[in-house]
């Protein structure tokens, strides 16, 4: 979290700069099956964020040494396009994207029935085309829908969602300015059917009470986003336009 300026993030009417209420999410749209070359795919817009996920596989895992005898490995690449941010990003992985790729892969392994595909590999490619705070969550949501679109069996979806703290107030779903000048960010991946957590990161400053409130907001928002996810898949499979 930046938190180094005196930037006002809450208006006098208690709303946020973009007019949202404290527990209000940015608009989310999802489309499944957007990439013809992939086995499964999805595009998520979350506010001004644009995240695309492609799934390939299950396929033979090679080289051999990455194979697991009893399950599939999930190979995730989270990548920000060079033009996705204010200043251009040099192509290629950096430390941030490697870390997000790792924990996203581990989250998805928690829900995919990997034991169905021993010795195989499932490739999940997450591409951020436009970033406005919250890309890792949009990426997890997109990856979940893309896996479902590819017909990969899962015990549940994962919904990516975040809450945070600005001006000592817990709010749902930080936007760019709130992320830059806020006090805490708590992105999580929630299993909508059980409420369990498969993805968790947090930085900044939160008391235990603030943490609990932020998680409450997150669980509420996860339900909303889950409906959009289900809807996208329905449109895809019920002969909707892909």
């Amino acid at each position, binding site marked *: 979290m930046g938190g180094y300026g005196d930037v006002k993030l809450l208006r006098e009417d208690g709303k946020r700069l973009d007019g949202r209420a404290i527990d209000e999410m940015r608009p989310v749209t999802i489309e499944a099956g*957007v*990439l*013809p*070359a*992939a*086995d499964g795919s999805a595009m998520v817009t979350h506010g*001004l964020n*644009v995240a*695309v996920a*492609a799934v*390939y596989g299950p*396929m033979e895992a090679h080289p051999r040494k990455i194979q697991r005898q009893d399950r599939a490995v999930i190979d995730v*690449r989270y*990548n920000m*396009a*060079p*033009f*996705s*941010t*204010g*200043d*251009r990003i040099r*192509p*290629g992985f950096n430390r941030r994207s490697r870390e997000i790729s790792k924990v996203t892969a581990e989250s998805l392994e928690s829900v995919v029935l990997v034991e169905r595909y021993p010795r195989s590999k499932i*490739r999940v*490619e997450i*591409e951020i*085309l*436009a*970033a*406005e705070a919250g890309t890792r969550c949009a990426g997890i949501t997109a990856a979940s829908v893309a896996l479902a679109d590819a017909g990969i069996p899962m015990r549940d979806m994962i919904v990516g969602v975040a809450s945070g703290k600005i001006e000592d107030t817990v709010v749902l779903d930080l936007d760019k300015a709130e992320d830059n000048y806020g006090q805490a960010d708590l992105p999580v991946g929630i299993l909508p059917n059980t409420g369990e957590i498969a993805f968790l990161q947090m930085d900044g400053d939160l008391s235990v009470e603030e943490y609990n409130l932020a998680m409450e907001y997150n669980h509420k928002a996860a339900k909303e986003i889950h409906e959009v996810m289900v809807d996208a898949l329905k449109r895809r499979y019920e002969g909707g336009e892909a």
Partner: protein
Amino acid sequence: MVELVPSLLRQELNRLAAEGQRIDGRGHFDVRDVHLEVDCLYNAEGSAKVVWGDTIIYAGVKFEIRTPWPDRPAQGSLMCGAELRPVAHRKYEPGPPSPESIELGRVVDRGIRESGCIDMGELCIVPGEKVWGVMIDIHVLSDGGNIFDAAGLAAIAALRTAVVPAERFDVGEDHTLKVNGTPIMASFKRAGGRFVYDPREEEELGGDERIHITLGDEGHLHSLQKGLKGVFTPEEFAEILAVAEQKCSELRKMVAEKEGN
């Protein structure tokens, strides 16, 4: 096994060619459906999305301020790069840029650069001190064949709708980038023994050499490239060059229409 499919496919392509046919029913110089959308990405100063058959490509333009090269103190710079990331197809693997992606970026770059559509002198802010660097990044999301033409189209469309973010860098007011021309690429692939325009994925697998031609508004050549194994005769080139002129004109019109919107 990987080897087997191409050889069967090659037989099929030969059979179709002998009957004057093509795997998807097109005539040998027909194009697939092409959709162009511009100004479609937050944070990019210019952007375009091209859906060309099963191929989907985004291009984004970003600006930076840099010090000019000592031998060209009043000239900015243009750079075009492409990434063929694993998202785009099962066949692409992670790792450093492949020769394919380098070739793609450089062929598109040369077509735009050599057309002279960007006047490097206009990118100068303070001679010897500050010039604009313009960077076009091509991002292939789905490779359904003929990514060269789709990438070239996305790149020039993104460039032609770009806004120089002078305010963000405190060097004046935002203004549209001046682009003098619309270079367009047309690519041909030998498939079934003859050349076809706009190859789809299967035609690229089974075929031989590939020729990329970039033409400017006046029909002048600005970039040529032969890729992959194979040779061609001067007569073959003359034929596809004539086709290219027509195809490039049509796509150039599409770009102009989108700008009107």
